[in-house]
């Protein structure tokens, strides 16, 4: 049941850990090519929700499709069509820039000749030509983040999931990072991004705000500001999240 319009379409997704309901009745549609901002306070359930969408976590209940595959029954098919960048830097620190890119691109089934060409291109675009044979653990954090993004997108997946990709990096690097996100979007990839930076939310096509495991608001940044009579996304977030109990 692949729809041409929505690349993510889930209904009533719930994840419980014992008595604790991390994600409560999540329903969501994300359109192809969209940059979707997935906002929420700490502990609101963003990462858990994203892990369910990526097939890393089995939903307790609910249904839906990601990249046209069933979220409950076909997680391995979903994994072939997505890229994922976790909150924690998770490339192999002892492998070089090029070895990491080759490893992930090979796993996603890219032909060897394409890998070499695209890895070289990517190193050049990242300005990492000089360090491509250095172990990645020696790179500065901003470089690591952008490299992790490249590793997650080299195979041009349908959807890229980014879990707080710009945590802890300086504004200039964040800006470069968002340029990369826009470029990926213009190449037809859909981007699903969690973030704590409300200025970043303004760059997204649409934004949802999660509070205590539930989505409380979902619209374009402009729409949200109008709805909550706020001047900035920052204000919107504070209004929506003010009664959060889990922070």
């Amino acid at each position, binding site marked *: 049941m692949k729809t041409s319009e929505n690349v993510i379409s889930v209904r009533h997704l719930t994840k419980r850990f014992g008595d604790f309901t991390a994600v409560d009745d999540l329903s969501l549609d994300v359109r192809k090519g969209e940059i979707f901002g997935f906002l929420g306070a700490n502990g609101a359930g963003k990462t858990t929700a994203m892990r369910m969408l990526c097939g*890393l*976590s*089995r939903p307790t209940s609910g249904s839906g499709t990601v990249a046209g595959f069933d979220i409950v029954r076909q*997680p391995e098919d979903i994994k072939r069509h997505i890229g994922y960048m*976790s909150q924690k830097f*998770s490339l192999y620190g002892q*492998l070089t820039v090029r070895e990491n890119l080759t*490893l992930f691109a090979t*796993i996603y089934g890219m032909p060897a000749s394409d890998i070499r060409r695209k890895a070289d291109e990517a190193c050049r675009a990242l300005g990492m030509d000089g360090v491509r044979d250095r172990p990645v653990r020696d790179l500065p954090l901003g470089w690591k983040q952008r490299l992790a993004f490249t590793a997650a997108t080299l195979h041009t997946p349908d959807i890229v999931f980014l879990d707080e990709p710009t945590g802890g990096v300086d504004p200039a690097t964040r800006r470069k990072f968002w340029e990369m996100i826009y470029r990926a979007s213009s190449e037809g990839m859909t981007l699903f991004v969690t973030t704590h930076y409300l200025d970043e939310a303004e760059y997204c096509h649409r934004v949802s705000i999660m509070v205590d495991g539930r989505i409380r608001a979902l619209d374009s940044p402009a729409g949200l500001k109008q709805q909550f009579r706020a001047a900035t996304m920052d204000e919107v977030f504070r209004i929506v999240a003010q009664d959060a109990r889990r922070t």
Partner: protein
Amino acid sequence: MQTRILRILLKKELTLMLRNPLIPRLIVAMPLLVMLVIPLVADLDVKDVGVAVVDRDHSLLSRRLVADMDASASLTVTAVCDTYDEALRHIERGDADVVLTIPSGYFRDLSGGKSPHLDLSANGVNATKGILGAQYASRSLLQTLTRWSAEEGTALPEAATASVLNRYNPTLNFRNYMIPALMVVLLILICGFLPALNLVSEKESGTIEAMNVTPVGRFTFVLSKLIPFWAIGLLVVTVGMLVGWLVYGLVPAGHIAYIYLAAILFTLVMSGLGVSIANRSSTLLQSIFVMFAFIVIFQLMGGLFTPIASMPRWAQVLTYAIPPRYFIEIMRAVYLKGAGIADLWQQYAALAAFALLFCLVAAKTYRKRE
């Protein structure tokens, strides 16, 4: 089968292993250390057994028995006493381990065709020394008696001709017994711990999640964790055999292919166990602790230090569930007896079954999705 993915994952494992500051050294240094040091210190051979003699016979033969005993390599007659109590005091003081009593009229009775008894008692406090000492003493007595009867042209009574013969390890050299078993210890440690540590540190660093979110199949991923330890296991066994040959002059009496075959199966058993434990642990400490519990049981109940035959019946039954038991049996039989697969097929079959079981458990307990 994802052969291309498996290949790149193996390449990744190999690269990471070679770049690790510790592991390549550990793989070479540990076998060397264990093989060079342990056989020297864990030597259970008995030397300098003290014998206190109570000679009530005072005959030519009794004096000859005592003199021959004193002259033999590992026995020293430390006291000749008049009473058993006096001999016991020597034991208590620690200068004797075995008491030999020659009854009065022993020579007369033996010449007269009767079967008089010599009495050997051993100090049970140091059990190994006592038991082996008594065995050495009885061997010495038998030799003297046999020689004496040949000179005299008389036949010894039936009971006196029984003898102990140590087959396959004629010198009862403890080292020959230990060295094959030490290689088992090495494989238990290296191929059990390293895969567990490897996998759990991927969990701790988060790279395992980066793998779980890709299309890498769980069998492929687990294989990429098992195969490198195959190679390492073979390397360790090779180093072990080289040290055994160059340092101790011990070469397998059987074909080394049988040793390698057993080693391959056993490394699969151990690395399968290591991966299974890692799958269920979320921290390095957890996995180390659980692995340790297994390793202690494996070492103490696998027949490595204590013979399985001397365990209580229920414990002997339990040892069938302990995979190193089969590997130790194979190693000792191939090394000392020159046994082959025809003699040991049951042990090989048991090892293969365990290898299959543990690898299946490793693959089944690996979760790509929580």
